[in-house]
């Protein structure tokens, strides 16, 4: 691994709270989310020379974390085909998460499709522009717009609210 600059390390540390929020929005479960953050840091450090001088770190890291999440989701889908559902349903009790109240909006996010969840996480929770979100996901801005519109509609339905 090439040497990592101290400045980059410090920037990643500063970004950790936001990376954790983004991961929580994608993964739902706090420990899965922190595992995603861990994978994202490892990957970022391993290919830090790909980060262009002066390029915003946040967008780059969000992209790495988002790709890690996609990889995990694919791996999970493979496991689903191999194991019986009951085995997957078993979860070790997590004393931390047991105390945390799950808000309706968090439950609703977990029930969204991956496509809708990622775009809502990037734009509405992390505050990225449509352009930045489009670059991270690798789609056109128009696709971001339409996914956002459908994702919002789905969220509002899940939350039992009137449609705009």
């Amino acid at each position: 691994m090439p040497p990592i600059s101290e400045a980059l390390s410090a920037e990643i540390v500063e970004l950790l709270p936001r990376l954790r929020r983004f991961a929580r929005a994608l993964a739902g479960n706090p420990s899965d989310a922190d595992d995603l953050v861990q994978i994202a840091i490892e990957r970022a450090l391993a290919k830090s020379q790909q980060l262009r001088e002066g390029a915003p770190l946040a967008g780059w890291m969000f992209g790495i974390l988002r790709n890690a999440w996609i990889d995990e989701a694919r791996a999970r889908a493979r496991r689903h085909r191999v194991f019986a559902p009951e085995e997957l349903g078993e979860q070790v009790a997590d004393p931390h998460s047991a105390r945390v109240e799950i808000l309706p909006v968090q439950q609703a996010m977990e029930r969204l499709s991956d496509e809708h969840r990622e775009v809502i996480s990037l734009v509405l929770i992390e505050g990225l522009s449509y352009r930045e979100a489009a670059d991270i996901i690798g789609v056109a801005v128009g696709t971001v717009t339409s996914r956002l519109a459908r994702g919002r509609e789905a969220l509002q339905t899940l939350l039992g609210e009137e449609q705009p």
Partner: protein
Amino acid sequence: MNFSEETLMAYVDGELDGSTREQVERAAATDPEVARRVAAHHALNRKLRAGFDPVLEEPVPARLVSLARGAHGESKPGALLQFPVRSVPQRSWVQWSSLAASFALGALAWHFASRLNSVAPITTSRGEFVASGALEQALNGQLAADQAPAAVVQMGVSFRSRQGDYCRTFRLRDTAAASGLACRESSGWTVQVLVHDAPAAQGEYRQAASAMPATVLHAVEDSIAGEPLDSADEAAARARGWLPKR
């Protein structure tokens, strides 16, 4: 005027150019139906932020901080605002064993302490920085669960340190914005860590994170025994004057 859902959504997300934005604003001012649809989008956005923003206030797990720091966990001379807790693990985290770090705390603390009146939030006493004024009042009396958003001092988490003292993180918006950690010792609340808040990021992202600086979170992780206090524990600690049951 009839706006598509995508246009109203883009308006709420700050994505419209000037002229379309003005059209939506005019319509929202006169057409209750447009106003209602815009308000519904705003309400959903607020709900999402309320659901996930609390993650920003959680302490970041130490393993993630260490991983990101890689080989840079050791503090170096010149990294003045880095609290050197990790570089001196053999000594108490409350001890100011590094001259550089003392200077860093001191320079900022002096900024607060040097005002020639009785309301300075930090004063010096026997070589330590002690909370006074509004900061002391907030540390003594203000519960995290019950504080005005506009208060000069915002309390973060409260916890018991490994030494058994009560410690609390705070954010101070005085003549400078700073975040820190103070612990209740026999002489009062001594300020252990104090760092400048980074100015809110502008432009690149519309919503700036409101997290405690990593330096403060790091100091919390290094000193905390068990879990942070919940609101009931916090109220009980306040009732005891933040003095531990011995």
